[in-house]
């Protein structure tokens, strides 16, 4: 199809889809209405399991199966991206690591200062996921990003040293495996897959919500390792992998 033909075809079809959407939207309950039957049940269930962050309760306790699969998607995608970004037959990996570019001294200093802060905030977001906004995924992303401040402030070599990839490769897989294994532990201990098997504790305290914080930590480990591995593969492609000189 030529470009104009494709565009016209799409616009006509999109108009049809838009009409479908509009007629459906007109039948929806008004924006901001108090009709949320699932919400009412989910809040009650979260309070019953002493989980202050209801989103955390839905994510890991009530609809934990969704999250198990979500983490498996992450695992599969990181493994898949790693496989797709492996050096191909005619490429090799540069062993000399480029030390990149000039970065302002002030930027470097800020990077150094913010690295530990970001790590701490990331850990806080993971650990308090069942009490305050956040959780394993959000904290894990912050942790994974924090390490890359080293590259961004011009220390790719330092990053390469503090980031032994095989460790994080395994860390990601073991985090995901821990999630699945906790699911099976639910069968053994409570007779229900992904059942909440730990004591619920007191509402609002650090040790509460049963297994939710444990799931948060498993996911945090997986996501942080996953982000590190993923970005490492992209960094390798961008900085190190080169086509073999034809000899």
């Amino acid at each position: 199809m030529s470009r104009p033909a494709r565009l016209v075809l799409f616009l006509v079809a999109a108009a049809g889809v838009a009409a479908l959407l509009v007629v459906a939207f007109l039948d929806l309950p008004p924006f901001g209405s108090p009709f949320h039957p699932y919400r009412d049940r989910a809040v009650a269930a979260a309070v019953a399991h002493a989980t202050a962050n209801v989103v955390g309760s839905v994510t890991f306790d009530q609809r934990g199966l969704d999250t198990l699969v979500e983490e498996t998607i992450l695992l599969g995608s990181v493994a898949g991206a790693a496989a797709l970004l492996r050096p191909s037959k005619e490429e090799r990996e540069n062993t000399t690591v480029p030390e990149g570019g000039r970065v302002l001294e002030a930027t470097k200093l800020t990077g150094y200062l913010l690295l530990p802060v970001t790590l701490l905030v990331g850990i806080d977001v993971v650990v308090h996921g069942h009490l305050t906004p956040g959780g394993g995924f959000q904290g894990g992303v912050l942790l994974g990003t924090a390490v890359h401040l080293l590259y961004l402030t011009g220390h790719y070599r330092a990053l390469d040293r503090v980031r032994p990839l095989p460790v994080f490769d395994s860390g990601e897989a073991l985090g995901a495996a821990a999630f699945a294994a906790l699911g099976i532990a639910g069968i053994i201990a409570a007779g229900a897959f992904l059942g909440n098997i730990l004591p619920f504790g007191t509402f609002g305290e650090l040790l509460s919500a049963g297994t939710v914080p444990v799931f948060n930590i498993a996911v945090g480990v997986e996501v942080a390792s996953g982000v590190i591995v993923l970005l490492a593969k992209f960094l390798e492609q961008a900085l190190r992998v080169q086509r073999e000189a034809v000899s």
Partner: protein
Amino acid sequence: MVPSADPAATHLAPLAFTVPIIVACLLLALGRRLPRWAVDGLATTTAAAVAGIDVLLLMAARDGRVVTWAGGWTPVDGTTVGIALVADPLGVGAALIAAILMLCALVFSWRYFDSAEAHLHALMLLFLAGMTGFVLTGDLFNMFVFFELMGAVAYALTGFKIEDPTSVHGALSFGVVNSLGAYLTLCGIGILYARTGELGLAQLAVALRGNPPEALLVTAFVLVLTGWLVKAAMVPFHFWTADAEAVAPTPVCLLFSGIMVALGVYGTFRVYHVVFAPVLPAPGVQCLFLVFGAVTAVVGAVMCFAQRHLKRLLAYSTIAHVGLFLLAFGTLDAAGTEGGALYVAGHAGIKSALFLMSGVILNRYGSVDEIDLHGRGRHAVLLPWLMPLAGLALAGLPPFGLGMGKAVAEEAVATAGGWWAVAVFVLVSAATGGAVIRAALRIYRGTGRAPEASPPGTEETSGTDEEAEVSGLLQRVPLTMLVPIVVLLLGALALGVVPGVSEAFHAAASRFTDGAGYVARTLGAPAPLPAPTAPSGWTLSGVALSLLSSAMALAFALAALHHDRLPATLRAAARPVAPVLRGVRALHSGHVGDYVAWLFVGVAVLGAFLAAGAL
């Protein structure tokens, strides 16, 4: 008190997808340190274990459904916050097919990809987990998540041969189109949730009970179906299929073609029967699937016959067969569903065996171009017999299971659609079978004219530069590649000859179409048994039609091979077909923008069609 099977059986459903996930994690964690044989062994054993779990679950679900509430959130007074896994015989049967095909694929790949680390095996196991979960879950959003798992892993598997330009290109088109379809599905889920506040299939059905067929439901139905139908490769959502299946590694093609596209059909009709059957009038939906099924079947068959790239030919034949699945399931009754399910199972065996044969050809001769391979296989021993046989079986040769499914389905669509639907069945299966036989005769017997050097720059994908998947071409076919082929063909044969198969499929189909029973059993109410209907099986007319389509397949193949010897009148009659064929081929442009435009055309047309029928 709800009659429940053995309580231990309720733990089988989650194990069926958790076990492969855990093993995949282990493979990824230890992959570098394990020797290749251990990786192969572990992956194969896991696939076998999943198949075993599926068999146990199938036995437990034989007389009904096994319901598992994840997290132990069993409904109280019909409401809950949890996710149900609902295993009914048809769903578990699909999971079992997936596990068996995975087993064959993994055995076949023992000699494959010498360089790859454990990534391929881990991804394959995650793919199996995704497929298994998709058919077992009883929750719409959970279906979406498993669908995305299947999708994400499948994109990576499709592009796995990174040295092959077509491979990465096909994977990207697949990824974009399939993801967009999934997002439309999610929009549909969002609209349904806004209206009902529910996500479980059974809970949605309860919340919608007594609702008039309004515009919102039409939109939600079409949007939810879009993702599933993209996976199912229904025209005009099918464009990614040939591009992806022609370029993926052979063991992956086998799973895509054998079961993944059929799961799209499964999702479509699962959602219809449980959630939408009471609120959308059946005649409109039936008509929709008859029309779209027939168009899909014809487009797939025509494109299939026009291919010279062996794997592309098989991919288009899969699209043609998906059209036939849609016709059969689209009758919406137990008989048609029984025929469709048998057809899917038989097709899985035959088509997978054919894909494995194309893999053997690729790794032995370094090409999958039928013209280029003319007569190259003269000295081969077993495949020259097996490949035409599989072609005949694809056309419906009795007593293969595919033929029985075809016979049962034909009878059902004749009642629902009319004689033309039967004609589509016969012609389409003959054309796809004929294309396979043509290729087999050309490659293994050197039938027809020897190739002339084809002019460079022709606008078609030939398959001469396809990258072989082993280091160095094979001198002889190893046993690990031959055994899965023979096993798959024998399995397809057994489906048609073992007594009781038809009865079992009929029972499964009547459960599948009984949406009210599904809802009641899931939410813990006693479920009335559906009124028993008589199972069909082989009938005289069915055998006759199947023999007819097999004979026509042979005739098509010979006519294509010796077209210069056909009578002049026949050739003149065929001449106007050429520009039409060129036009249809030109639409399959490999351009992702085109594919997305067609995706929206499909959604709009589906919506208009259904709105006209329902409102």
